[in-house]
């Protein structure tokens, strides 16, 4: 891709000392990714990061479902900043695209409409007695990962290349609407050709695949997924994206936003069950990774430690392609290393792990 313009959208990313805000969806569906992010930053890169137990959800999902008023979410956000101040940090990193959107948007609103900031300070003080200072820097966790992409590349145990042919893996990236569509300047590469994931992919040896519906929403649409009656919309959007990317034969999808990663994974299952359409090699789905998982794999983390077993679409074919060694038998082990049973196999699942477990059982 001849994207040069990303360089015009450079944003300030702090080098160290991050106040980390977790994501509701990421910790629900990709707890391993959050763990991996912290591990990579602190262990591999030796950075300082605070995982503060007192912070809460930004309530962004509630806000975008229109049940949480703007004033309320502003105050919740203000509380997060206050916690950060309290802990002595000023670089806010959030693990969620919705949150990232919320933080940048609220900071911009406070700037544009100062009376809203005043009101928020008032509300926060009234409710909690807290005050706050705005962060020096707000970044999404992927921004930080992008920031250190070369350091990670230097430590790479695996590259995003086919271990057999040496060809770069074909990667489809999905950015998540709220990363840069709200404020193009707040995303690396802007809103049209975001470079945050592409930069990692290229640094780590992969090839980014552009396709017609690249910029399209995964279809979460908040109330559109959260209410069962509306899910036809949600699945239809992912369906549209999958149909559009399938002819490019991507080796995997990497998503910036935890929700998108979950949906692009789960909807492949639902589409297969609903209408029999399957994607990917042999119809066993296109693996979907979070960028933390992608980075973890590159750095040689154990796939199961990254939580890849929590995906509906099996990632093993990708691991095989990358030449990553893993223990198939360790996939479904509980926290003490004991086998806890395995999920039912679905159309999109391919790995003949059944036999292994059948033997174990």
């Amino acid at each position, binding site marked *: 891709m001849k994207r040069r*313009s990303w360089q015009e959208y450079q944003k300030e990313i702090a080098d160290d000392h991050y106040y980390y805000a977790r994501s509701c969806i990421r910790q629900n569906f990709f707890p391993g990714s959050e763990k991996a992010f912290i591990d990579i930053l602190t262990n591999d890169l030796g950075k300082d990061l605070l995982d503060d137990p007192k912070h809460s959800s930004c309530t962004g999902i509630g806000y975008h479902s229109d049940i949480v008023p703007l004033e309320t979410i502003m105050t919740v956000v203000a509380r997060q900043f206050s916690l950060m101040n309290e802990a002595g940090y000023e670089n806010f990193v959030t693990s969620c695209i919705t949150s990232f959107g919320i933080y940048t948007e609220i900071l911009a609103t406070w700037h544009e409409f100062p009376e809203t900031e005043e009101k928020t300070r008032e509300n926060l003080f009234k409710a909690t007695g807290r005050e706050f200072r705005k962060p020096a820097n707000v970044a999404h966790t992927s921004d930080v990962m992008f920031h250190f992409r070369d350091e990670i590349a230097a430590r790479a145990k695996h590259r995003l290349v086919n271990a057999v042919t040496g060809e770069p893996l074909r990667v489809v990236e999905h950015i998540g609407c709220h990363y840069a569509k709200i404020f193009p300047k707040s995303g690396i590469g802007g809103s049209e050709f975001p470079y945050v994931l592409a930069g990692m992919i290229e640094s780590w040896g992969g090839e980014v695949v552009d396709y017609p519906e690249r910029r399209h929403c995964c279809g979460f649409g908040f109330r559109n997924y959260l209410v069962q009656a509306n899910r036809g919309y949600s699945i239809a959007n992912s369906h549209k994206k999958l149909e559009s990317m399938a002819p490019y034969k991507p080796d995997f999808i990497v998503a910036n936003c935890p929700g998108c990663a979950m949906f692009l994974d789960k909807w492949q299952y639902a589409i297969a069950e609903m209408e029999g359409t399957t994607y990917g090699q042999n119809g066993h789905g296109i693996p979907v990774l979070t960028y933390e998982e992608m980075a973890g794999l590159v750095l040689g983390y154990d796939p199961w430690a990254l939580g890849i077993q929590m995906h509906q679409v099996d990632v093993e074919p990708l691991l095989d392609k990358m030449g990553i060694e893993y223990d198939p038998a360790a996939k479904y082990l509980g926290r003490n290393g004991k086998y806890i049973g395995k999920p039912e196999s679905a159309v999109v699942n391919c790995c003949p792990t059944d036999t292994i477990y059948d033997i174990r059982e």
Partner: protein
Amino acid sequence: MKKRIIVIGGGVAGMQTALRLAEQGIEPVIVEKEPELGGKLRGWHVLFPTFTPAEQVLTDLRRRINERGIEVMTSTEVVGLEPRSVALADGRRLTCDSVVLASGSTLFDASIKEEYGYGIYDNVFTSADLERMFNEGRVAKADGSAPRRIAFLHCVGSRDEKVCQQHCSKVCCVTGVKQAMEMKRLFPEADVFNFYMDIRMFGPGYEELYREAQQSYNIHFVRGRISEASPTLEGRVQIKAEDTLTGRPLRMSVDMLVLLIGMRANDDNARLADGAGLQRARSGFMAPRDLFLGNVASNVDGIFYAGTVTAPKTIGESLNEATAAADAAVRYVEA
């Protein structure tokens, strides 16, 4: 001694201004930053609405400049002006009795509208590219094959706050219609779509041209601005828009996407204006003293405007305005 007036810019407006000045016994000097006269006209193929070859107009103007023996300084950039002198980039200062600023405007850089992928996707072109291709006689997709479906997008870099171009560039509508017809002539089997918000056919014969494009050329006009362009596996360009007349989103892939780029104010307008105390409009174009009774005069006595330095204009309008500007300048120096 003959009065001397410096004409900054050697495009159609500058050339016509100089010719008119010479006719009235003034000694004009054309200062042009490019190596040759002609300005934007050098890049055009045929002119709307008559399909007159641009070359024909250009050749005639150049011939008359030669015949009159008008002094022309090419490859010379102006960095500042005053009513009685012009400063050049090489440090020289030319003195004169008055200045006509005919420095024109700049074509909008389509790559700024990232969502259309100009410079990124092979088959996205600008109207200026297309004119060049017409002139070179090689109109084709990037791979050299003939297009079967072509889309034109109006208002690229015009009427768009996102790129700080709120003004209408005036000529792109009719250019889009003209180019669509030219494409249809070259590729009669191709489907041609024009995506527009308003079709502004303000000039004589323009509306007729539009109608002919619709009825005789079967060019499809879709009211809706293209939202984004993306590549397809076959190297085509997929575009999305709303067909606003039906209120439904529309998607299609095309072999060529042509962006009808607008005119924007020259970047050096700001510097020239600041130096000379000239006023600029919000759009960045120079602001005439008065839009009705003094539209070729600036707010500074002795500095006059001709052509698109004040706003987007057609070739014909620029020529007319050049005459008016020259006359105003003559009245000034002879007063």
